[in-house]
């Protein structure tokens, strides 16, 4: 008989109640309903992830979520939401979620390119697609994760995008997820992107607060990319409330001779846990996962990823850069699995962190699980302070210390940003990095390590 841990915390009990109250109205046919039930049963057995679980060791969700906020259940198009959308500089097809619910009236649906289909996740969940539950489940390496399980159980909406075979997008598809944020709410959204054979394009995800109230956000995006596709995913989390707790899962199943790249920038956020579950489903593909985390005050940024080399001849690269000031905490946990027959795998994983103060913390945990014998895999993890010699060199040329530090930090972050392929998006990302550094420079904050 399985041992069932009773759910103890207030948040866990509230989640049970919320699920019981809302499951009848959450969208989905019988298969989706079963998916939700199974996921929630897992949650009921295990509870919120906590520090005694290795994969959640440094981000204890049980402690962070003292209370589960009420589920957001409607689109609140506030003036702040509209204002933020007006400011947003990203070009391309814009698909807007407000509090996790697709808002077609705010989206640019007249700009859907040929060969691309868009529907809301709620619509897709009630469709008769036979492969729906398989797509939603994503790579098996994410199946045990309780953060993701809660999303599966409670996902309300999102977008379901399909790019047809051979279609090359000229402009990115931008999924903007805004928290209207006048009240504290819990948001569960999931989006799906299917890329057909040889399809190429960029998907940009923006997760921001338009309002002032802290949110509990649990988002997921699922990619299934076919053979010879080239898909780039960029996530920007640059305007969140400090008390917001955000869990973002990225699930990707990548076909043969394909390229899949993801880049994420976290800056000016609260607590962000990003988890990537990535699977090579076909041979001769390349996967790149990269990101920059800029944290300060008591902010917390966790990147936990599992890359599953299930087939031979896969190339994977991970590069994460963390700059941590104040009393902030950075986490990187990267696991690369090479299955027994996945010969000729080429894997390289790097996480570099710069600590700006004695109060800042970084946890780096790279892991390789290699069961094949003809592979090239490496990892490097560093935690350091700003190089004093570099600083002196710049200062000896007349740059005041805050400016010299900003230049060194910008260069440090830039090594990951340069992998963003779309030039406009890359410039936007770099501008966000610079503005974070400028704010630090303006406050005349200098490192004290």
């Amino acid at each position, binding site marked *: 008989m399985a041992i069932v841990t009773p759910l103890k915390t207030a948040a866990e009990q509230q989640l049970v109640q919320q699920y019981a109250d809302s499951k009848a109205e959450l969208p989905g046919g019988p298969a989706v309903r079963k998916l939700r039930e199974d996921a929630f049963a897992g949650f009921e057995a295990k509870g919120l992830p906590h520090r005694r679980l290795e994969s959640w060791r440094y981000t204890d969700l049980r402690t962070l979520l003292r209370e589960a906020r009420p589920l957001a259940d409607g689109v609140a198009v506030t003036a702040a939401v509209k204002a933020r959308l007006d400011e947003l500089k990203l070009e391309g097809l814009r698909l807007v979620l407000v509090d996790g619910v697709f808002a077609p009236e705010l989206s640019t649906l007249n700009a859907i390119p040929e060969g691309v289909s868009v529907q809301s996740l709620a619509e897709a969940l009630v469709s008769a697609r036979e492969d729906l539950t398989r797509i939603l489940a994503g790579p098996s390496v994410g199946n045990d994760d309780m953060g993701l399980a809660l999303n599966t159980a409670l996902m309300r909406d999102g977008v379901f995008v399909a790019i047809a075979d051979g279609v090359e997008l000229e402009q990115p598809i931008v999924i903007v997820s805004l928290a209207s944020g006048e009240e504290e709410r819990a948001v569960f959204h999931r989006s799906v992107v299917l890329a057909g054979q040889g399809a190429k394009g960029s998907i940009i995800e923006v997760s921001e607060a338009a309002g002032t109230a802290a949110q509990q956000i649990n988002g997921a995006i699922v990619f299934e990319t076919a053979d010879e596709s080239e898909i780039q995913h960029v996530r920007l989390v640059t305007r969140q409330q400090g008390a917001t707790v955000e869990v973002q899962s990225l699930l990707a199943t990548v076909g043969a001779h394909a390229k899949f790249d993801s880049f994420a920038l976290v800056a000016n956020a609260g607590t962000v846990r990003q988890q990537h579950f990535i699977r090579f489903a076909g041979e001769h593909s390349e996967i790149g996962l990269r990101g920059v985390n800029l944290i300060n005050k008591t902010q917390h940024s966790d990147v936990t990823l599992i890359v599953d080399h299930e087939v031979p001849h896969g190339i994977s690269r991970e590069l994460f850069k963390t700059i941590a000031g104040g009393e902030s905490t950075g986490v990187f946990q990267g696991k690369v699995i090479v299955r027994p027959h996945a010969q000729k795998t080429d894997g390289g994983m790097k996480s570099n962190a710069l600590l700006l103060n004695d109060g800042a913390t970084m946890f780096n945990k790279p892991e390789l699980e290699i069961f094949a014998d003809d592979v090239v895999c490496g990892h490097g993890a560093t935690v350091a302070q700003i190089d004093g010699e570099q600083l002196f060199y*710049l200062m*000896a*040329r*007349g740059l*005041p*210390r805050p400016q*010299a530090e900003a230049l060194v930090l910008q*260069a440090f972050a830039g090594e990951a940003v340069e992998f963003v392929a779309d030039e406009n998006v890359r410039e936007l990302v770099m501008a966000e990095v610079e503005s974070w550094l400028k704010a630090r420079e303006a406050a005349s904050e200098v490192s004290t390590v």
Partner: protein
Amino acid sequence: MVGFVPTIHVFLSNAQVVDARHRAEHDAAEHWTRTMLEIRNLVVKIADEDKQILNGLNLTVNDGEVAAIMGPNGSGKSTLSYVIAGKEDYEVLDGEILLNGENVLEMEADQRAAAGIFLAFQYPLEIPGVATMTFLKAAMNAQRKARGEDELLTPDFIKAVNSAADKLGIAKDMLRRPLNVGFSGGEKKRMEILQMALLSPSMCILDETDSGLDIDALRIVAEGVNALRAKNRSFLVITHYQRLLDHIVPDTVHVMSNGRIVKTGGKELALELEKSGYASYGEAA
């Protein structure tokens, strides 16, 4: 043990005598009218250690003067250059460094740069991710800002860089790369002189600029430096070898040993040292 030379011992045991002679020589030359850099009784140790490197050093460099400092390994030459430029790893226990009469020891490195001090590094730092042009512009504008001047317009900036780069044989390609990353030793040194030319400092310190240079690169770098010689610009050329001084001919030569200037003379002193070596200065203290 190294041979004991009485005359030098006199200099050492009485730094003031050295200083007096040193000044007398300068006064005799008569074409320097004003002091650019004056270092008085400088005592310096490494900040985190008990190791004292400079032991009451005195040195004067006048306007437009090219002063060479020669000395054996470990005599404190590089430390002197770092302390003048404002590196933090050292603790000044005593003495003063005056630039145009103003004590620079209270200033941060960037303020010293704005005041006119420029250190050409022995080992210029590689800064991955910082484009050379971005860096040059930031440096020029930071100094302009410190002096209350407007920022450079981009076309003026590019023109200034291109013109200075041409003179030093610096290819455009180098300017497009990250600062000093993948540069050869010679390229790095040329980049230092390019910065010197663009920032037009009044007190230039060249720390072993000849190290790692082949004859051709040495000539190009020396020509670059010579082109910058001016009445209102002084140089402190730190080197092990006479070789560099064939190209950058100094007005005065100072011998440094054990953290002090132990002998001062004209350019012929460098030739003498090349023949006799530093052995006689080695056990100075």
